[in-house]
């Protein structure tokens, strides 16, 4: 009899624990537009003060936003068109959030779980290809399912690729993030499908400030006057942005003479210039990030170095920032949701079309800009003006006369893409042919004399890439 009672008790305990209702972990504090939560196959439209359970999938629609406050007082703002799953948030172990798509802005309290070890992540946020370990902080993470980008406003995060997006094992996630990059406030990093995270670099200061002030993802695509693109760089042609840069030394002295001594300059994250060493890519400080796609737009050549923040102030042609902190490309340039850069090009007949252009190198050197073009002349004029004979054959392919290479004909509408120092080079469209190695294969040369019979049979050396 005792045995039966014991068995029934154990079974009851097992069944009750197995069917226990999921724990409520967060409450909706702010809501804009439409947001749904799905838990155990049941979907509900969220309202303010609704509770969201552990294991729920929260989805927001376009122009919608929801602010969740978790049990530990951490907040998580889920941006428009986003989907995230609370994979684990049980209060006993580090939390795990899976961001399927969209954006999250989060302020994680330092006492979550009262974890004392400051080198241990309090929360993990995963995307399809990246994972972030959060250690008490204010940050934003965004993914389009291809790239994942993160911007840190305060505190510390560690960020890395995620080889196995299915894992929820926190020890394994901790190991992964510890092998990644560590970010300090003001920095961003991007992970794409193929590469490790970019070396953390300082984000463009205007974009950083605007994003920081917009935790609720208020959509405002206007560009305030102060953020509209300047028509001309302060850097005169020939000089680098670093050469003309002014320090804040005079300003600090002047302020100190009247008011309280100014605070020290913000922490710099290494050199302002970008670099590429093997797989490691360090974007130039002051780059913009298209938050939705993770596309990095480095400051165009001619940008001036702001020694105060160790970031470049982008020169005209780099784009600008809208009031909501989103990146606004120059006129004629668009970024697709997949992260392709498209420019509007005009053909010789005046017809417009969209063409994809290569993304600028995030580590592109912010060099000087000079006008290297010279006044156009036709071949005939060339013959008249110079001492060479006027050409009689087909027009030479050069920068002056050939429609196919005339930048004016390839330019995006209104975009300063073809000017000196442009980073959106429409001129590259269709110009990526690899020239046939006509001379390289050297068919004109005689059979090479090699040892033995090989020399006698018309064989010749193939001299790829190098040849007269």
């Amino acid at each position, binding site marked *: 009899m005792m045995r039966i009672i014991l068995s029934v008790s154990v079974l009851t305990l097992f069944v009750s624990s197995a069917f226990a209702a999921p724990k409520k972990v967060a409450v909706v504090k702010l809501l804009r537009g439409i947001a749904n939560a799905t838990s155990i196959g049941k979907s509900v439209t969220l309202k303010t003060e609704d509770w969201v359970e552990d294991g729920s999938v929260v989805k927001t629609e376009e122009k919608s936003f929801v602010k969740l406050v978790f049990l530990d007082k951490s907040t998580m703002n889920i941006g428009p068109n986003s989907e995230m799953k609370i994979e684990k948030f049980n209060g006993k172990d580090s939390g795990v959030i899976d961001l399927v798509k969209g954006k999250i802005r989060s302020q994680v309290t330092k006492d979550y779980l009262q974890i004392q070890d400051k080198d241990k992540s309090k929360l993990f946020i995963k995307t399809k290809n990246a994972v972030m370990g959060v250690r008490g902080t204010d940050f934003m993470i965004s993914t389009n399912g291809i790239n994942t980008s993160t911007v840190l406003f305060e505190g510390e995060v560690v960020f890395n690729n995620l080889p196995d997006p299915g894992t929820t094992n926190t020890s394994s996630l901790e190991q992964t993030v510890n092998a990644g990059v560590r970010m300090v406030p003001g920095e961003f990093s991007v992970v794409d499908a193929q590469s490790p995270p970019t070396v953390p670099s300082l984000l463009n200061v205007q974009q950083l400030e605007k994003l920081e002030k917009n935790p609720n993802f208020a959509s405002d695509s206007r560009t305030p006057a102060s953020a509209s693109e300047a028509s001309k760089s302060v850097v005169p042609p020939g000089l680098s942005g670093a050469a003309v840069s002014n320090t804040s030394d005079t300003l600090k002295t002047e302020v100190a003479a*009247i008011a309280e001594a100014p605070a020290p300059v913000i922490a710099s994250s290494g050199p302002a210039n970008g670099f590429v060493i093997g797989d490691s890519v360090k974007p130039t400080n002051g780059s913009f990030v298209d938050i939705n796609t993770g596309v990095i737009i480095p400051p165009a050549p001619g940008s001036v170095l702001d020694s105060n923040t160790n*970031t470049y102030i982008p020169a005209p042609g780099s784009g600008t920032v809208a009031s909501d902190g989103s990146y606004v490309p120059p006129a004629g340039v668009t970024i697709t949701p997949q992260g392709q850069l498209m420019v509007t090009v005009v053909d010789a007949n005046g017809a417009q079309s969209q063409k994809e252009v290569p993304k600028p190198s995030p580590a592109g050197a912010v060099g000087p800009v*000079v006008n290297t073009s010279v006044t156009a002349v036709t071949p005939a004029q060339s013959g008249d003006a110079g001492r060479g*004979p006027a050409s009689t054959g087909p027009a030479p392919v050069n920068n002056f006369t050939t429609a196919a290479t005339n930048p004016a004909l390839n330019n995006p509408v209104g975009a300063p893409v073809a000017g000196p120092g442009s980073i959106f080079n429409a001129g590259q469209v269709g110009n990526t042919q690899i020239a046939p190695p006509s001379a390289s*294969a050297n*068919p004109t040369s005689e059979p090479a*004399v090699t040892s033995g019979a090989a020399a006698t049979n*018309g064989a010749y050396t193939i001299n790829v890439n190098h040849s007269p």
Partner: protein
Amino acid sequence: MMKIYYILIVGLVWCSLSFSQTETDLNEVSGKAQLAVASKLYLQGRYESAVTELDRVQKTIGESDKPDQKLLALVAYLKGMSNNRLQDYPEAIIGFSRALDLGYSPKDINYEFGQALYASEKHKEARIQFRESLRKKFKPAVSLYYIAFTTKELGEKEKALTFFKSMDKLPSEEVKPLKQAVEFQIGDIYLEQVEKHKDAFRAVEKFVIPQYEKALDVEKDSALAAQIKEKIVALQRKYDLVLFNLRNGRPTLIPAYFIRAAEEIGIDTNVTFSPNETTVKKSKQASTFSKTDFIGKYTFYHRDYFSIAPEFRFNNVYYFNRVKEIYRNDNQLYAPALRSSYEYSLFNKPAATLLDYDYNQALRDVNAQEKLDFSSRSHTFMLGERFNFFQSGETIFRVRHRTFNSYLNSQNAQTWSLVAEQFKSLGTSTLLFYLSMDRARVSDEFFNTNAMTFRTDWIMGQYKTWFSPSVGFSMTRTDPINNRTARGQETQISPNLRLYKSFGRIRGAFKYDYMRNFSRDEASFAYKKQTYGLELEYIF
């Protein structure tokens, strides 16, 4: 009573004055505190917030009866500085102007003001500010550069030139980072001055390009240097100072010379010996070998339709297995040649008639005495036609005659060849087809042959940023017309593989060749061999 009134009035006046004073002090204190906040925001790079805070400070101070002018000026200066970094130059100009109007002139204000004016295309006003900045010795070299450049933009070329040239009077450590840009700007001014003249090309060649080259000499690998080179080429093209394209559009070789040195270390699994052009002897022994190759060529152009290129090639092969059958194959080749082409257009595309002469002198250890002796010499004339009939690549036809003299008189030979080549571009790779028919007539007629060779190569682009592969296959069918009974129709097949990796001017290659000859006379003529090699080459 009057006394009381008097005391009351004096008291009231004193109180009101005293309160007013307190209010002013409070505003000032509050303004200074806000200024500290604003400057902190500025130093954190939060320029937008700094401007907002500065507006607040301005309002607070403005509420005083007697606003602190210095404080107001400092606020205006800070607003100018913040707006400059926000690239809001009109607002920056307002800030700096106000600060200067209030008689406030910190060391860098004119420099920053000048930059805001410069970015707003107010060159004249900018120049005044940079002059002031130079007077204050604030970033003197950069300030002078701005002065010179704005002067140039204002169309005062001579004056601008003077300013650029006067930079040499500044301390060299100040000027050094700007030196290349200064020389470049001087070149630009020269160019603008000479371009209007009829004989501009002479002046461009004599003054402008040398000036740009002077700028290049300052630092050859800088970002600016790359742009200077671009400009030099643009000018050379514009004024036909250098022939870039032949009359049919084919680009000329720049530079006109080509020098290549290569060293290969490899293994030959079956070293073969060929005393003439149609026979072969096999050693059935393997050996490592060293192969040194050098080629130098220079192409001269006559006007834009004819080129002639003398060429010299040297080749040395040394086998490390020092047995007679092997080391008798040590050889050296001296091969001067003269190649010419007459360029014209056919089917509206570049075409050329080719005429080449090759002389080969080969030394070989023919007597197996570890000493190189005369082995053979040959004279080859080739007449060819290169044209673009197909969209995808060039076609070349050649007729070739070779006179071959061996150290064995019986092996002297005359060979006529007909050759056809076709290139086919496949985007990132190229296919190459080669077909030749060779008729060799040897002094000892027993060795006469007719042969046909087909070869194809697939030259691929870079594979995964690591190496560039190339694969090839050739097949030769040889008819020993006077020895068919013994040898039959011989067939030789030879596939090969190359993997290239470039490091600037140095290129490494792994080479693999397989060769097999099928012959009825298996004892003498049938053989197979493999050759593996690692080659390093340098292009000068």
